[in-house]
């Protein structure tokens, strides 16, 4: 049997791998680039930077997004910043240190070679963005400013107020616009990819739906690049934008692109708690707040009860009756433990009954002592915009009363499996940004997703795709009349027809919420064998319920948001099942994945490197068959594997 997965990691010392690889791979001549077409799905940091760069090189690019403008991709919402090992602060940062922090932060479940390359190109990203006119924060001397972020000892995060993602995306969007104006990129807004077309084993195009007219379209190319973002919305409630979805990643999975580590999801500890069943999404409060805020719940149950009945206010609880549980459990790191640890600790207290709001799912993030120590002005300067945002949403003033926070789904480390060239297991099909699995292992450090998206799009794919396309220069423009195009077109059409004609009773959202509850309860912050086994059965049943009982009003040939949501939910349901399966298989705890069975005596996560130092690479075996698990062993030659400790 031929080997199904080959990571194609170049040989040689880690610091030379990328340089040597670039020297050894093929390039396509300018004259031939003009004859080659590339489809890019997604215009977030990864997609927009890739489309712009590929067009600058001379390829013909077709770029797709579901919003009415490329600028509205979910990357726009990133707040905190982007990492780069510039060492501008002279604090002994380096490529190696960024590499090391990222591998360790990912709890040793990422591929060393990819992470090292990411660290190598990180500095170029900042240079590129500055050249585009991205208004990064600066010091009085006029040079770039940095801030610190969780899990590291140096100051390497570049930022643009609390809107770093917005500014980086607008930079990539401007580069994209320049290419659209020049004719090198044809932009398709309000178009959703619903299937990929594979001809003779190679990706040759996609099927899309024009979201305004409902028309189903066929688009061909010599290569297809997916940059469609993460799948956090499988939980219904998450910090992701409402339209974020997994459909591209899931459809390519069904056509042969394997899916890696689906159970690796990140739960962010500081989000505004759920207020009720009507809630549509969750809002992140930046990680930076934990620099000055102290997290606590009451020690006494009677105080909890009074708080819930609003008989007392948090300020009425005496200092000695408060449980600053992070400071108690992790004296060394205190409130600054990594995201996964802080999230689990909050859940532990709330499960024990100490949650401070009516739903029992909230803890306090208190700035009183910071305000006493530093003065209100300093706190206002640091966090004013966040406090204002919090007040707009909750009507509470965080200067006077502690914020209420609770963990929420925020990011997905898992995704489409790619080799070192960012190519999936389908030749000619690539995946970038949050939609691939590559660099963050089992837990992503803050400010590194933006870095990865732009690294992939500006500095990695434009090289590696050339190696693949150098073998395609003889391939004429692909015709969309090929039977495979018609087959994919028909499959999509039938699916849509089935949905709009279904005589069901339930709205899409009501089923999505049910999926969200299953996922959060059984495949959320703490997972065990029983819950995961149950989840798989429940999701299977929900899939049946969806296809027999969903109600999609309106028709297929018009602007129809319920139909859009239904198509996305169909894929989320199937992905949810795979996530549960993956979590069940991985009976160790690592990073954001916590198996109750694999904990130390103090209840901390326990990794199992002997059995699980591998990437789980899931292969679709057919709609009614169990997926096949392939394993990519992870080899660590440059960092020593250690159990993380924050005590």
């Amino acid at each position, binding site marked *: 049997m031929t080997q199904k997965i080959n990571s194609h990691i170049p040989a040689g010392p880690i610091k030379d791998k990328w340089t040597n690889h670039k020297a050894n791979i093929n390039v396509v001549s300018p004259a031939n680039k003009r004859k080659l077409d590339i489809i890019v799905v997604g215009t977030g940091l990864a997609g927009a930077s890739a489309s712009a760069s590929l067009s600058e090189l001379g390829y013909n690019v077709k770029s797709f997004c579901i919003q009415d403008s490329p600028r*509205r991709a979910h990357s726009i919402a990133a707040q905190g910043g982007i990492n780069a090992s510039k060492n501008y602060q002279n604090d002994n940062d380096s490529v190696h240190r960024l590499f090391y922090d990222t591998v360790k932060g990912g709890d040793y479940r990422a591929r060393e070679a990819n992470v090292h390359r990411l660290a190598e190109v990180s500095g170029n990203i900042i240079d590129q963005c*500055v050249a585009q006119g991205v208004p990064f924060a600066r010091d009085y001397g006029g040079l770039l400013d940095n801030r610190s972020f969780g899990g590291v000892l140096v100051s390497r995060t570049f930022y643009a107020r609390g809107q770093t993602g917005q500014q980086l995306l607008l930079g990539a969007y401007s580069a994209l616009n320049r290419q659209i104006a020049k004719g090198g990129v044809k932009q398709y807004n309000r178009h959703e990819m619903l299937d990929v077309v594979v001809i003779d084993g190679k990706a040759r195009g996609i099927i899309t739906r024009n979201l305004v007219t409902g028309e189903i379209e066929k688009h061909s190319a010599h290569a297809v690049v997916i940059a469609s973002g993460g799948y956090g919305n499988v939980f219904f409630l998450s910090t992701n934008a409402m339209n974020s979805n997994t459909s591209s990643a899931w459809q390519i999975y069904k056509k042969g692109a394997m899916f890696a580590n689906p159970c690796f999801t990140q739960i962010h500890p500081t989000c505004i708690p759920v207020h009720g069943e009507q809630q549509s999404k969750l809002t992140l409060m930046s990680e930076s707040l934990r620099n000055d805020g102290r997290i606590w719940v009451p020690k006494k149950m009677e105080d909890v009860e009074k708080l819930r009945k609003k008989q007392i206010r948090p300020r009425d609880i005496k200092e000695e009756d408060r449980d600053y549980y992070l400071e108690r459990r992790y004296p060394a790191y205190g409130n600054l433990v990594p995201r996964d640890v802080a999230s689990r600790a909050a859940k532990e207290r709330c499960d024990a009954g100490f949650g401070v709001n009516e739903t029992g799912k909230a803890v306090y993030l208190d700035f009183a002592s910071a305000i006493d120590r530093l003065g209100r002005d300093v706190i206002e300067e640091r966090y004013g915009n966040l406090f204002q945002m919090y007040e707009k949403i909750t*009507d509470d003033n965080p200067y006077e009363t502690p914020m209420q926070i609770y963990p929420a789904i925020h990011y997905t480390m898992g995704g489409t499996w790619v080799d070192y060239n960012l190519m999936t297991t389908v030749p000619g099909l690539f995946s970038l940004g949050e939609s691939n699995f590559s660099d963050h292992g089992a837990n992503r450090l803050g400010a590194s997703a933006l870095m990865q998206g732009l690294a992939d799009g500006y500095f990695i794919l434009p090289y590696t795709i050339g190696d693949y396309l150098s073998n395609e220069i003889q391939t004429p423009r692909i015709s969309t009349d090929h039977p495979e195009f018609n087959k994919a077109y028909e499959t999509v059409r039938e699916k849509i027809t089935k949905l709009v004609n279904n005589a069901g009773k339930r709205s899409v959202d009501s089923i999505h919420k049910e999926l969200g509850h299953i996922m959060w309860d059984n495949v959320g912050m703490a997972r065990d064998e029983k819950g995961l086994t149950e989840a798989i059965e429940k999701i299977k049943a929900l899939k049946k319920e969806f296809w027999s009982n969903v109600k999609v009003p309106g028709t297929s040939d018009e602007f129809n948001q319920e139909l859009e949501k239904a198509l996305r939910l169909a894929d989320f349901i199937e992905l949810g099942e795979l996530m549960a399966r993956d979590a069940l298989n991985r009976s160790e705890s690592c990073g954001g994945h916590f198996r109750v069975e694999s904990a130390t005596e103090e209840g901390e996560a326990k990794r199992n490197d002997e059995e699980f130092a591998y990437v789980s690479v899931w292969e679709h075996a057919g709609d009614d068959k169990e997926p096949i698990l392939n394993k990519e062993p992870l080899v660590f030659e440059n960092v020593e594997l250690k159990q993380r400790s924050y005590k």
Partner: protein
Amino acid sequence: MNLKLKVWRQKNAKAKGGFEIYNISNISPDTSFLEMLDILNEQLINEGKEPVAFDHDCREGICGMCSLFINGRAHGPDDDVTTCQLHMRKFKDGETVTIEPWRSAAFPVIKDLVVEREAFEKIQQAGGYVSVNTGGVPDGNAIAIPKEDADEAMDAAACIGCGACVATCKNSSAMLFVAAKVSQFAKLPQGKPEAARRAKAMVAKMDELGFGGCTNTGACEAECPKGISISHIARLNREYLVAKLKD
């Protein structure tokens, strides 16, 4: 709280639209405006009716996707927020709430409350960039930029491209939107070389697309959810003048 909603319904771009009245009850004041519309839609679906189409995505006030004219104001009665950040506590129990799409010839209605903002894309493509390719750029710290300039560029760059300025302006002018981009780049050494050319190209495109002229009423600034200042329009005018003098 209980509300009466007067909502603009329009089947598609060609259809003639009109208002429909819906009653909605038991809305928590902590619900966001768009969640209130979600509840309305759930109600409509359960009654076998078509839900109201409206644009939204991030629901955090940053993507610029949501729009809506609410009780005669772009993004509703609260200041400095987008529709998605508006909460029902800003309304009174029993109130009638009128909900309309952006109204501007440059933003045709697609369906119900959803409009086409492609014109904004065309304006950006006309010059909203610095002409650099990927790679081969100098080190990020090679050019020092005074903090005040960087901050001012950031103020302008905060525009989310929502279109509230156009929807509010009696002339349907896109000047604030255009000025925000021109001003951001004019303040930075990287954008300076092309500043005049950019201003001219973006203004010409704006005129060509049927946006009206600016008569300095300041309405746009008052309704802009990101507080983009009309002082940027003054800077745009300066750059534009320079470009014209060179002609």
